[in-house]
């Protein structure tokens, strides 16, 4: 690291004008990025990490304004610079890549042309050679068959490929600083690893500096030299990776580190650090004595399940030509069999498209299987049509908790209405007082303060919405919960609390869980047994610790190794 930083931010404060008045998004933020250094900015949602990046690159928009402090790039003032000068700088000196790469590319312009736009804008190529340069960039980011992909539209590419195109655009003009804003959120772990390795290799090769914005401490540990921890618009700690994990000084950093599930952490450890800043967490309801699970009794049995979808994209065929029946269908679930005992929890793990969500949807009878049986509590539920099953008494014994706590709540329903819905529909309860009492009891059980019950989803925080979703699911005393990535949209500290809540509920109510997730470390905390799926098939089954620490199959090994994590002992 040289003495002269490439980027320095000094005592930066940013305010936003909103309808409710001015909101301070950043306060006294200072950070430095040296030449060739990789700086991680870590924090949970609302910490101001993205706002910092947008301020630096001048994309704050009309509503935001830097009220104090300065950002300097290589001796050049960025705050207060004319838009025209910033425009010359962006893409040429400082580039940025974003999360959700598919949406971040122009949907109706071939990706090659989008790379060309950047090259031409910064006069890095002439009309004559711009196509070659764009193709060279596509090759650089290891896109197979760049000639073919040059003319592709973003919707024809996978998320990982779109992010590669974004990287190609960002690096096309050889900038000296790359800002990566959650570049791999929403991508599979193996894709995430490939993408991050690519960013690391390409930026090292060019001696570039990188600012990596992430919520994932594991990723920051794996790819950064130094880490800045932000909370509520302030920098709370700034240290080298080793110092930060071995010797965190700020309580918030300690809390974050504890809450990030690693390969050896225990559920109780996640909130081991008391929350000094926000006061004590809401008191949990008194723990009822756990109902002993009757061992050896199978609650659910899935036998030889197959689900096929018709293919739309069977390539290059005229309608009058006969289609190969094998190629006309896509087999999402391919002869899957497993069983689940009462009181047991089972993790379904795999990357997107592996069939884990399809399997869980068939179990809850939201989808009809092509072949195979699902036997729940001694009865074959696949023999009923989905509509008929909805009226069966078994239906209420299976409940779901969904991935997005916000989108899975009706925006026009208060928390109380949401929880009352299954009570009315499935239990046929009608007395207002009876329902009210039950809702209050459920709210206590999931740790949702009763005075929040009258609020609408948009007035609740992510963790509170997750609690409403859980309360709704357990309202009818189900035997089994299907949890479809219930914590992937939550901040780590909230995730920690929700995982503990789920674990406690399971013990108290003697429920079985099917926990669908892409994150092996999270699954391990909650599940006794894990099933790893790939391309519709079961790759490996075993106890959670076995699979995670001693995987038998090569695919599982790749999956486990791709998870970015930190182990303070090994740094």
């Amino acid at each position, binding site marked *: 690291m040289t003495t002269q930083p490439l980027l320095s931010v000094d005592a930066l404060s940013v305010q936003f004008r909103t309808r409710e008045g001015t909101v301070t998004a950043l306060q006294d933020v200072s950070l430095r990025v040296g030449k060739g250094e990789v700086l991680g900015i870590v924090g949970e949602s609302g910490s101001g990490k993205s706002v910092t990046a947008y301020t630096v*690159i001048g*994309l704050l928009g009309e509503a935001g304004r830097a009220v104090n402090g300065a950002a300097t790039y290589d001796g050049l003032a960025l705050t207060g610079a004319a838009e025209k000068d*910033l*425009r*010359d*700088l*962006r*893409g*040429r000196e400082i*580039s*940025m890549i*974003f999360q*959700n790469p598919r*949406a*971040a*590319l*122009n*949907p*109706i*312009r071939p990706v090659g042309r989008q790379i060309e*736009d*950047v090259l031409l*804008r*910064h006069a890095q190529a002439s009309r004559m050679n711009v196509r070659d340069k764009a193709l060279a960039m596509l090759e650089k980011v290891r896109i197979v068959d760049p000639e073919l992909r040059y003319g592709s*539209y973003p*919707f024809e590419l996978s998320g990982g490929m779109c992010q590669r195109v*974004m990287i190609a*655009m*960002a690096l096309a003009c050889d900038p000296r600083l790359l800002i990566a804003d959650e570049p791999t959120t929403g991508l599979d772990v193996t894709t995430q690893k490939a993408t991050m390795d690519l960013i690391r290799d390409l930026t090292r090769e060019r001696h570039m500096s990188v600012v990596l914005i992430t919520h994932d401490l594991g990723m920051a540990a794996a790819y950064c030299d130094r880490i800045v921890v932000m909370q509520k618009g302030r920098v709370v700690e700034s240290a080298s990776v080793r110092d930060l994990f071995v010797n965190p000084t700020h309580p918030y950093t300690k809390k974050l580190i504890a809450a990030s599930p690693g390969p050896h952490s225990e559920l109780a450890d996640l909130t081991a650090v008391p929350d000094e800043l926000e006061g004590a967490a809401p008191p949990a309801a008194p723990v009822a004595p756990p109902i002993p699970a009757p061992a050896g009794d199978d609650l659910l049995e899935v036998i030889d399940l197959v689900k096929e979808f018709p293919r*739309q994209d069977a390539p*290059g065929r*005229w*309608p009058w030509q006969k289609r190969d029946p094998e190629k006309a269908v896509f087999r999402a679930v391919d002869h899957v069999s497993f069983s689940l005992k009462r009181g047991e929890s089972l993790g379904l793990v795999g990357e997107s498209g592996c069939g884990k969500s399809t399997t869980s949807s068939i179990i809850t009878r939201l989808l009809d299987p092509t072949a195979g049986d699902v036997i729940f509590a001694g009865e074959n539920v696949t023999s009923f049509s989905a509509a008929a099953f909805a009226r069966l008494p078994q239906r209420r014994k299976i409940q779901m908790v969904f991935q997005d706590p916000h989108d899975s709540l009706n925006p026009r329903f208060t928390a109380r209405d949401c929880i009352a819905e299954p009570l009315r529909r499935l239990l046929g309860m009608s007395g207002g007082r009876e329902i009210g009492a039950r809702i209050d009891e459920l709210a206590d059980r999931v740790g949702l303060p009763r005075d929040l019950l009258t609020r609408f989803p948009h007035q609740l925080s992510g963790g509170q919405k997750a609690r409403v979703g859980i309360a709704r699911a357990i309202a009818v005393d189900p035997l089994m919960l299907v949890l479809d990535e219930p914590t992937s949209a939550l901040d780590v500290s909230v995730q920690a609390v929700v995982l503990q809540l789920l674990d406690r509920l399971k013990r108290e109510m003697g429920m079985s869980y099917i926990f669908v997730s892409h994150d092996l470390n999270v699954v391990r905390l909650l599940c006794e047994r894990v099933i790893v799926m790939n391309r519709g098939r079961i790759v490996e089954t075993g106890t959670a610790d076995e699979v995670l620490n001693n995987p038998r199959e090569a695919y599982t090994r790749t999956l486990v190794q791709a998870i970015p994590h930190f182990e303070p002992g090994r740094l």
Partner: protein
Amino acid sequence: MRTKILQVGRRLLQALPSVFGIIVISFVLTRALPGDPAVYFAGAMADKVSIEQVRKSLGLDRGWVEQFGIYVDNLAHGNMGMSLSTGRPVSEELLSRLPASIELTLLGLGLAVLVAVPLGVLAATRPGSWIDHLCRLLVTAGVSLPTFFTGLFLIYVFYFLLGWAPSPLGRLDILYLSPPQVTGFYTIDSLLAGDLETFAASLAQLVLPAATLGLFALAPIARMTRAAMLGALASDYVRTAKANGLSRATVLGTYAFRNAALPVLTTLGMVFSFLLGANVLVEKVFSWPGIGSFAIEALVASDYAAVQGFVLSMALLFVAVNLAIDLVLTLVDPRVGLDD
């Protein structure tokens, strides 16, 4: 490319059922008239012999299926029956008046697009500015003022008070001869004939009715442009374009506007269809000899063959316009046709 051709072919095929449906409905409608259709079609002055003649030509003395066969066969030969009020074949009447209506509609739509699209774009790029408020005002006015009122109001101001516009009586002032017919559009025909004077005169006649239609069409287009543009400007891909330092023109044009143009194009198809309907009133107000005023006269005179012909040709025009818009969208938007 091949998939595109397939999609276009599929879309063309999809138009066939609607055309067939239209023919069936227009057939059933006339047969569903209370009483004897032959009496209606023959008119009030008909005697027994002519009623029988009409009955025969309509095939009303035969079975339903056969009647339908005759009806389709007649249509295929361009035979829509005779107009009672003019005594000429309906198809001939409609064809001779269609250019007048289309010329007016296209000019009205063109005016609306020319004003509405830039207005919507400017309003979206400068939210809260005076141009945004102007956009809102025009949209509200366009939605809330009925065309016959706007038409009369424009005549009152520009013809009666100011005297700028020629008298609102048809396509051309009686002082001029209509240009030799090539396309049927007076403006184009006069230009083709090299007759600038007639061109100016026919354009002058067109301005007020076209402006009336344009004001009506402006509202949905401007509103859609503004909304689509706001959406595009707030999108992730525009953020990317800005983050790569692309010029303002590229960001607004290539990135934001081209994406925003897709929903606007869809709206355009709808608006064109509305305009065909709105035409009827505007043509009446301006004594425009188009198919709208022909249809009203036919309706008043209980000229059923003419009304039937009008309904049928309007419906076919609807289908054709929407087909054209869909085809353009299929060719412009790479994503179209994936999820059907």
